[in-house]
C-alpha cells in the first residue's frame, strides 16, 4: 500500500493516483541534437532506490504531484508540487546520496 500526500488533499491511497512518469528529466532546448532528444523521450535510468516521479491525483483534485519514492521498498520519502525541489530537501535530510 502506497500513501501519497497530495499537496491539496492530504494523504490518499495510491489507487486514486495515476503514474505519469520520471520527474528527473529536463526538457532539452528546442534546437538540441537528435541524440539529446532521443535520450529525453525514450531513455530512463530505472534506478533501484529513491526515484523522482510524477503522479496525477486523477480520482481526486486532478493535480500533478511530484513524489520521491524508493523503488525497492515503495516507501514514499517526499511529496510536493511539480515546481518543488524535493531532491534538494531529501539530500539535506540524508535520504539521498549526492549524485543519485
Amino acid at each position, binding site marked *: 500500500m502506497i500513501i501519497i500526500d497530495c499537496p491539496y*488533499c492530504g494523504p*490518499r491511497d495510491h489507487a486514486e493516483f495515476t503514474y505519469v512518469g520520471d520527474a528527473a528529466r529536463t526538457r532539452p532546448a528546442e534546437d538540441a541534437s537528435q541524440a539529446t532528444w532521443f535520450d529525453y523521450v525514450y531513455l530512463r535510468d530505472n534506478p533501484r532506490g529513491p526515484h523522482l516521479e510524477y503522479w496525477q491525483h486523477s480520482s481526486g*483534485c486532478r493535480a500533478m504531484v511530484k513524489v520521491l519514492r524508493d523503488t525497492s521498498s515503495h516507501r514514499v520519502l517526499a511529496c510536493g508540487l511539480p515546481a518543488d525541489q524535493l531532491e534538494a530537501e531529501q539530500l539535506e535530510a540524508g535520504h539521498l546520496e549526492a549524485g543519485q
Partner: protein
Amino acid sequence: MAETRTLPPRRSALVSALKPGTFGTLGSDGPGSDGPGVTLSERHPMSVVQVEGRIGQEAALGDALETAIGIHPADGFNRVSGDEDGPRILWVGPCRWYVAEPESRDLYGALRPAMGKFGGATVDLSSGRTVFRLSGHDARRVLAKGCSLDTHSSTFGPGACGQTGLFHVSVLIACVDEAPTYEIYAARGYALSLWESLVDASMEYGLRVD
C-alpha cells in the same frame, strides 16, 4: 449580456430504481434495532456548474462568484461554502469549483457572464451529474465499505468535501451536517450502479429510501 435559456425538463437517472420505503435489517437486536441506520435519497433536479480559472486568480474569481450568486468560496482546499438548500460552492481542484443548487433558475446563465473574463472554463454539468444524499448514524460505515477517504468527523466534518472513488465510481463527497449527512456527486452514467451499491451496503443497518 446575459442570455436567458429555457431549461429542459430533467429526468432522474434513478427512475427505474428509486422506490421510497424501508428495507433491510430492522427491529431485531442487530444494528437496525433502533430504526434505520441509513437514509438514502436523490437530490433532484440539481443545477451543477463547474467554474475554473488559472492558478493565482482565486481571489478575483471568488469575488466574481460572490457578486454573481451571493456567496464566496470557502478558504482552503476541499471545503464547501453555502447552505444545502441554496447555492453552494464546492472545491474540486486548484482554482476550480462546483457551484450547485436545487434547480430553480438558469444557474449557468447566471455564472457565465461573470466567469467569462477569467479565460477559464464554465461548464454546465447539470445533465451529467446525479446527486445522492446519504444520512444517518451508519452512513460512515456505508462509505467505508466502498472508499478509502478518511471520513472521521475529526477530519471530514460539516464543510469538508473530497473527491475519491466510491465502489469504483469517481465521486465528489461533501459532509453536510453532523448526523452525519453526505452529499455525493457522481457521473450520471454511473448513478444506477452506485445507487445499487449504496443500497446493498446499507441493508444490514436498516435503510429508509426517501
